[in-house]
């Protein structure tokens, strides 16, 4: 039903912008060769059509999708948009076309390439979000909790409700270094805002004490006779270690007592 064109759509990189691409594609009854944000550095030989973001058009698509594809389908699109799937926009556009064709049943076509790819990307996003719920470490500086993460997907919208519910009376900031965004919360207010850079404060005495206590605990809880680094790595890939308190210790000799290093640390050094 849709002809395959050779134009590339460029849009402003927002979800509404993407919905306008969907609108355009349906209006012209064509599937573009690519859809990409206009700031993307790629060069292309194909003709480019810039798609203006029009809130009215976006709203029409926003309303049509839950009706045709079900709310589940809408959620999948919203989540897929946060992933780092290559050419995600094109997959999403094809998914919308499929959905208009098949109706809500499209969510059951788990073996269809487009659906399977998007679901896989969504699972990756979910898994990564869960990993950050597990492995984020906050530093207390003054009265604010701060943390830095380097996710592949844009996980902030997914982890925000979890941490806001958990620390309702604290003020905290989670800085996403990959995407230059930060989740900022203080009681009653939260926002995800673009942030260019983030300066880490040196830990004060109290903060250092609890970091050390945590490391002490981490070392003591391991059982030497069961040492199993592979199992640890399966559950906790090294990519996350960089920002975790128990793996980035400041080794200041003489700050704490000396003696043989404890089991956990020896195991750590052994790798």
């Amino acid at each position: 039903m849709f002809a395959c064109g050779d134009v590339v759509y460029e849009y402003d990189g927002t979800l509404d912008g993407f919905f306008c691409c969907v609108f355009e594609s349906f209006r012209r009854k064509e599937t573009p060769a690519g859809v990409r944000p206009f700031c993307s550095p790629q060069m292309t030989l194909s003709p480019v059509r810039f798609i203006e973001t029009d809130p009215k058009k976006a709203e029409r698509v926003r309303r049509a999708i839950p009706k045709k594809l079900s709310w589940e389908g809408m959620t999948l699109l919203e989540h897929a948009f946060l992933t780092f799937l290559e050419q995600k926009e094109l997959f999403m556009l094809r998914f919308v076309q499929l959905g208009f064709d098949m109706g809500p049943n499209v969510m059951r076509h788990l073996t269809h390439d487009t659906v399977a790819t998007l679901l896989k990307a969504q699972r990756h996003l979910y898994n990564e979000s869960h990993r950050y719920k597990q492995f984020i470490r906050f530093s207390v500086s003054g009265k604010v909790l701060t943390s830095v993460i380097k996710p592949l997907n844009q996980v902030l919208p997914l982890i925000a409700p979890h941490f806001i519910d958990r620390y309702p009376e604290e003020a905290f900031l989670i800085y996403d270094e990959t995407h230059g965004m930060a989740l900022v919360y203080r009681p009653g207010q939260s926002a995800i805002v673009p942030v260019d850079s983030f300066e880490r404060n040196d830990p004060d005495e109290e903060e250092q004490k609890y970091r050390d206590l945590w490391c002490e605990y981490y070392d003591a809880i391991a059982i030497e006779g069961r040492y199993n680094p592979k199992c640890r790595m399966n559950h906790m890939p090294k990519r996350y270690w960089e920002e975790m308190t128990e793996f980035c210790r400041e080794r200041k000799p003489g700050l704490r007592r000396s003696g043989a290093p404890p089991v956990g640390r020896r195991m750590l050094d052994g790798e």
Partner: protein
Amino acid sequence: MDLFDKLKILTDGAKYDVACTSSGVDRENGSHGMGSAVSCGICHTFSADGRCVSLLKVLMTNCCIFDCAYCVNRRSNPVPRAAFTPRELADLTMQFYRRNYIEGLFLSSGIRKSPDDTVEQFIKTVQILRNEYHFYGYIHAKAIPGADHALLTRLGMLVDRMSVNIELPSEKSLSLLAPDKSKTSILKPMGFITGKLQENRRDLVQYRHAPKFAPAGQSTQMIVGASGETDYQILSLSSALYKKYKLKRVFFSAYMPVSSNPLLPAADTPPPLLREHRLYQADWLLRFYGFEANELLDEANPSFNPLIDPKCNWALSHMDRFPVEVGKADYEELLRVPGIGVNSAKRILAARRVGPLSYEGLKKIGVVLKRAQYFITVNGKLNDGLRITQDGILRNLISQQGVEYLRGQSAEQYEQLSLFSQGRIGGREAVKCLRAGM
């Protein structure tokens, strides 16, 4: 003694307790205090031995009036002793929780004076956390056998999960290794908690806001490999515990030699980790796959096959039920196929409603074809190019742990292996084909 030493000593004393999950309860925070609970549980780190660290798992004190042979904290063991005050422990929990190091607190303790005294210390700690600091995170507390029921009830109203450790899988081993404990003294508090949970469930039906008693239920653990029980005995016991006491989890802990007692395995015995792993796999089959303990093992075959996982083992000895047609089989039948899990079975049910399946499609859904291909047909056909040779089957079905197990065996021991109880393939061939495959 400073906090560092205390933490080290009291963590050391608690680490052999395996249960560290924070699952089973969903609780949203209101808008004050700190903390929430997520029913799937969250592991905040993994220790160097690969175990999940979810809770701050420490002892209130490691002073103990008991002298259980398998325990590091036994009276006669010359280790340094320490104790937390309730305030210290509550503060430490809050500070760790605030930094997202932990999901909550796991309270356990040696018995310093009496069981009642220990439970009172627990209650004091939890009261500070819940009432003073408005902590809504997860708390797991040990129900100390022999403590007053009124005290246990009060504790149960404040915590999420309670547990009584069954310690050893039979009365005989218990009387041998833990002379101060008996089967009844352990099962009594367990039965009491089960009763309380049921009573509370009735209350909650009547009054929606009735206070909840241990909303995440109760669990237990037993030590594997310290005494002579077979896998079959252990699995039957845990299945009985699930049914009779409605436990949420039964944990297994491979025995780590912590003392040289003539009644116990020698101090240089490696912990039976593979056995523990197989028990957990079987436990999973009991809880999520609709298996019964006597389907997996029986009097004639009382131990697990070290080379293949329990589900594969079951399938191989019930080949008359295979292959199943994925387009028609119901959910229970799909679950019994090696290589198909809970998720992929559900996805198969959804996908086949809108179109025919294919092997390619099954792969996308997440089925492990490497194992499943021997047990399924798709549209009446076996997988194209599937060559059924004994070597090939064995290479594909043997588990990763099984391969490591074989590697660990020395050359003389190869002959002792018996791969299948029916003796279909000898150990010698197994090793030959494994070598070829590696």
